[in-house]
């Protein structure tokens, strides 16, 4: 079967999912079955169909599963936001989804030859750094939960790290494509090859930048995201596991030093280790959110309590039991509502998406495409790990958006650009070879 027909058929489950989800939430809320959920499902299917036809025309050879997997993630997000915040927010999210698809199409049209991006790599890098630092500009940045993550413009709140991650990955892929040979060479000292300092310099600078981001922006999650992508790209570019080893050690040492010297990072770690400690539980910005997320997930059991059953507010009041349920804590609400099976299903969806990204990297014929596909897939993988690991108390909690699921416009837009780039790489890589 042709790749595009696979894609078309794969979109049907996504539309079924969104219809079933909306119907279940609607029953729970209004206690009656209405056709509105079917309309939502139909609109969603229509949008996906439009995007599919666009891909069919512009990228006929691209991976057939990347887009349907994204559609499933997006429908997960829409259903959960409808369930958490009601129809208004769900509509806003759906509008962002439409804008995201338009940006997706625009990216495919503008960067049809995405290797042009290499010419602008320093511009892209500078832009990304500026974006990352914007939240620190007084009067523009929003300080929440101990981190400067968003900027506030009239009408919209905008999360720069989401766009910066795409820019940083493009820069790293392009930079390491040119310097990988130099990095893999170098003098041997004590059995280890030490790369020439002039080539190692920019990488050390990036390590410093990730640490600086930790201090200046106060955000562990984003810096871990960038750093994970950096290590993955360096590993693929040089095939030297020692870089990864030293990178992890360097990050560990840096984080340990910062954790013991910066109060709010230390507070995050204490919340992670002792969420049920009464002092931390009642402290402002303490472990209240995290502890209640644990209870919500535990209540989910194997198959979940059903859509809309997880308690978000203390019964009889409007006080939040789980603050930020549609952004930070969306994963705990999913686990509460759909149980272990729903949560694992979501994680497997991400896993398959990431594996398709790596597959595109394997098939790509030039180094830049390979590194770019690896970097983009890794950045999503690390992002999912950071937020899901944070909610599930595997690592200290930091608020990065769950890609395609969490409520928020900038995240959706940036991730659609990312998917567009992956599809472009995949299309170029899978173009058929004429028979010998």
């Amino acid at each position: 079967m042709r790749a595009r027909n696979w894609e078309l058929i794969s979109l049907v489950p996504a539309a079924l999912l969104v219809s079933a989800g909306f119907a279940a939430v609607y029953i729970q809320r209004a206690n009656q079955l209405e056709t509105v959920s079917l309309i939502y499902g139909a609109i969603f299917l229509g949008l996906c169909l439009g995007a599919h036809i666009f891909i069919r025309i512009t990228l006929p050879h691209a991976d057939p599963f990347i887009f349907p997997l994204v559609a499933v993630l997006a429908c997960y997000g829409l259903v959960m936001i409808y369930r958490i915040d009601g129809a208004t927010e769900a509509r806003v999210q759906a509008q962002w989804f439409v804008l995201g698809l338009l940006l997706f199409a625009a990216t495919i049209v503008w960067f049809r030859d995405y290797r042009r991006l290499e010419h602008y790599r320093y511009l892209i890098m500078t832009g990304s750094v500026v974006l990352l630092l914007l939240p620190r500009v007084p009067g523009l940045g929003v300080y929440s939960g101990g981190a400067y993550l968003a900027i506030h413009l009239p009408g919209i709140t905008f999360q720069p790290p989401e766009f910066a991650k795409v820019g940083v990955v493009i820069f790293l892929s392009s930079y390491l494509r040119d310097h990988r040979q130099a990095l893999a060479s170098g003098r041997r000292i004590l059995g280890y090859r030490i790369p020439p300092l002039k080539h190692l310099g920019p990488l050390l600078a990036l390590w410093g930048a990730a640490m600086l981001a930790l201090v200046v922006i106060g955000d562990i999650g984003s810096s871990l995201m960038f750093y994970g992508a950096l290590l993955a790209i360096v590993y693929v570019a040089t095939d030297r596991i020692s870089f990864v080893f030293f990178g992890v050690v360097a990050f560990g040492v840096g984080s340990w030093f910062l954790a013991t010297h910066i109060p709010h990072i230390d507070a995050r770690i204490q919340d992670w280790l002792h969420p049920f400690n009464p002092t931390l539980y009642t402290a402002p910005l303490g472990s209240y959110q995290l502890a209640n997320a644990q209870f919500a997930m535990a209540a989910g059991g194997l198959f979940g309590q059903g859509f809309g059953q997880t308690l978000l507010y203390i019964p009889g009041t409007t006080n939040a039991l789980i603050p930020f349920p549609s952004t930070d804590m969306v994963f705990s609400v999913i686990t509460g509502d759909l149980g272990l099976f729903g949560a694992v299903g979501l994680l497997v969806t991400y896993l398959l998406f990431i594996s398709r990204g790596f597959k595109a990297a394997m098939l790509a014929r030039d180094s830049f495409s390979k590194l770019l596909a690896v970097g983009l897939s890794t950045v999503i993988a690390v992002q999912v790990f950071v937020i899901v690991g944070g909610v599930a108390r595997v690592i200290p909690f930091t608020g990065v958006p769950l890609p395609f699921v969490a409520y928020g416009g900038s995240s959706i837009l940036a991730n659609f650009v990312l998917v567009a780039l992956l599809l472009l790489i995949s299309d170029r890589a899978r173009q058929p070879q004429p028979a010998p």
Partner: protein
Amino acid sequence: MLQPVSVGLKLGFLIILYLFLIWVAASTLFDLRRGVRGVRGGGGGGGGRTVVAGEATSIHETVDPTALLGDGNFEPRLVVEHATGHEPGVAYDLMEPVTLGRGDVELKLEDPFASTRHATITRQGRTLVLADLGSTNGTYLNGEPVTGPQPLHDGDRIRIGDSEFTYLQ
């Protein structure tokens, strides 16, 4: 009254999700198997687009993995990025050996830093090899001075003086 419907819809949601995931995973597996057969079957055929076993990333291989898949797509060429006297974007065929330099050679450079016979690019089977001919100012491959003969990879950048080229195949 609507409770069973609600539970049914939730389970339906999960079942659809898992069927979809199993289907995607199965197709991925099918894809992988077909790829393996493609290599075992003599490396030919149009079916298997595979990465040759060996290094996991395949980025470090001298021979491009696609080179095993037939002659059709192998067009080694040198694309001008910027060079005096050459139109940017023009591609020079590399199927025959090419010498670069200021003198009477195949690819003439009007670059003050280029030597008369500066560097050569020769084809050895499916691998293109760049060698410096003892030039005064050196040849740079991806920003690194070329010392011995260097195999070229798709997308490599070659710089001589102020002239820059990209190698594509």
